[in-house]
């Protein structure tokens, strides 16, 4: 009698367990289906753009539209350079975003370093100045900035595009958090060894900050590469436009050919996409850092 009860409880237990297990498997399958759908929603526009950019114009405007087409061609990628001054846009974007990134890495880390590891008069005031600067939207002061640049004859110049962006409050904040986290005795030991402040900064502190520098680099690069309003205001001639400003104005005018615009859109995002594939963790780190502002 006793043995039988023990048997049944064991049986109930094991069916419970297998039920639980089956539920778990079903749940994980449902979860994966939902996530795959979401992935499809995120990826589909890109795939559609990529595929369409290789179609003949008549296949793009055909009705009903087809995702796939029988024939593919490179002609859009050849035609786009003639229909849009794309080469100029690419050049301007590389110079603007690239130079801004390099200069702001230097300036932001210098300021962040001073705020993190040096004691001086007015330190708190400077710190709050940077924190408040982070919250001031560009659109609020874009008109006087335009007038200022106009008066200095810096409209439509690389200098005019680069200098106002050569430092960012967020970059300073990010570098400061990084330097605060480095061990205290490092610079004290270096100072005892007779290294001057600049050498301590460049030879000891910066090499230890490579991950943060990388994150900040991709962060500023992406921001400036993708920015629209800022280059739109500080450039007036077509030959100085960056990719977003140029493409936006080009699509703003009536589109007569879709294919070249699609090819242009693919080309404009390709460089960042390639960098993203190789440096994904730094992109994510930059976003995550922006969440720690307090």
């Amino acid at each position, binding site marked *: 009698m006793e043995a039988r009860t023990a048997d049944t409880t064991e049986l109930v237990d094991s069916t419970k367990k297998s039920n639980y297990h089956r539920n778990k498997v079903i749940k994980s399958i449902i979860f994966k289906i939902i996530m795959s759908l979401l992935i499809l929603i995120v990826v589909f526009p890109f795939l559609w753009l990529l595929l369409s950019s290789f179609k003949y114009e008549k296949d793009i405007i055909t009705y009903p539209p087809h995702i796939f087409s029988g024939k593919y061609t490179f002609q859009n990628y050849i035609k786009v350079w003639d229909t849009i001054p794309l080469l100029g846009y690419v050049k301007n974007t590389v110079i603007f975003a690239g130079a801004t990134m390099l200069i702001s890495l230097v300036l932001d880390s210098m300021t962040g370093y001073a705020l993190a590891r040096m004691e001086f008069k007015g330190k708190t005031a400077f710190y709050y100045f940077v924190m408040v600067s982070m*919250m001031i939207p560009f659109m609020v002061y874009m008109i006087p900035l335009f007038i200022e640049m106009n008066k200095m004859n810096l409209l439509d110049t690389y200098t005019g595009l680069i200098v106002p962006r050569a430092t960012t409050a967020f970059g300073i904040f990010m570098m400061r958090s990084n330097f605060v986290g480095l061990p205290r005795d490092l610079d004290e030991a270096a100072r005892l060894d007779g290294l001057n402040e600049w050498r301590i900064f460049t030879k000891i502190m910066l090499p230890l900050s490579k991950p943060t520098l990388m994150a900040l680099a991709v962060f500023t690069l992406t921001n400036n590469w993708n920015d629209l309003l800022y280059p739109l205001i500080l450039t007036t001639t077509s030959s100085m436009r960056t990719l977003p400003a140029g493409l*936006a104005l080009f699509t703003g005018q009536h589109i007569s050919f879709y294919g070249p615009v699609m090819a242009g859109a693919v080309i404009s995002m390709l460089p960042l996409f390639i960098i993203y594939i190789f440096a994904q963790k730094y992109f994510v780190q930059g976003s995550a850092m922006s969440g720690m502002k307090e």
Partner: protein
Amino acid sequence: MEEIDTSVNKKRSFFRFWNQPKHAAYLFMAPSIIILLFFMVIPLIGTLGLSFFNINIFFTGTKFVGLDNFVQFFHDQRAINSMWHTVYFTLLETPTQVIVGTVAAAALSRTTLFNRFSRSVFYVPVICSLTTSGIIFSMLLDPNIGWIPYVLHQFGMSTPQFFRDATLAMPSIAVMTVWKNFGVTMTIMLTAIQAISPSLYESAEMDGANKKQQFFHVTIPQIIPSLGFCVMTNLIGSMQVFDQIYVTTAGGPEFKTESAVQYIYSRGFSAPYQLGYASAVATILFVIIAVLSVSSNLYMSHKEKQMR
């Protein structure tokens, strides 16, 4: 000989002076601070100053008009509408993005191969510019060449006009913005969720809480500060919406999607180039954004104190 000595000494003492951290700090900070002063603080003051003038882009007929520009704002229906459109966009975009981003983060918080892949994919639109996203969506949603209106038509709907439809345009822009930006919210929330100590879940499980209860009673309270941060930055960002509207609808149809920043831009940088009036509208928008960010900051820190 002596002269050289003193000059060397002078050089040395000069160097020694600036090599002290309390002095060197100013040299380290100088470039950044000068740039911020020249290209942010001065223009910022300039905005307020300009808003008291009638001034155009050619600087002809500049005149002090006092508060006239602000008075004009309240009689300018298009300006007031642009503010409402901005608020409407914000109310559509911010909650959706925060919810989608947070749910995605919670669902993908465990680090498995599949989850890591999903996270990488969800971040891809973030690195794509709003301009490019706008170009993609205005073609994808185009009633003539787009695939989505066609598919919806096949399901028996009348072909939706999306960006060309006065009621659908703004929601379409908001959905596109969520698509582009929820990866940022996801990343921030993921960091917050992964920082929660596993022991909290263990004790909740011992108390018999199921997954859903765990999410609402353990996860949510723990990530409130990050959630608040995401809501705040999203609100402030949405109030400045420009790029995606400029590319997709350019404010149309019939100014129905014109945002505040876009109105400022078109007032200042296209005919009649009224920089003074545009500055007044910018000042008003700035006040709104400043009130929003200060009050939400205060509210969040109040909430955090309550929870401790």
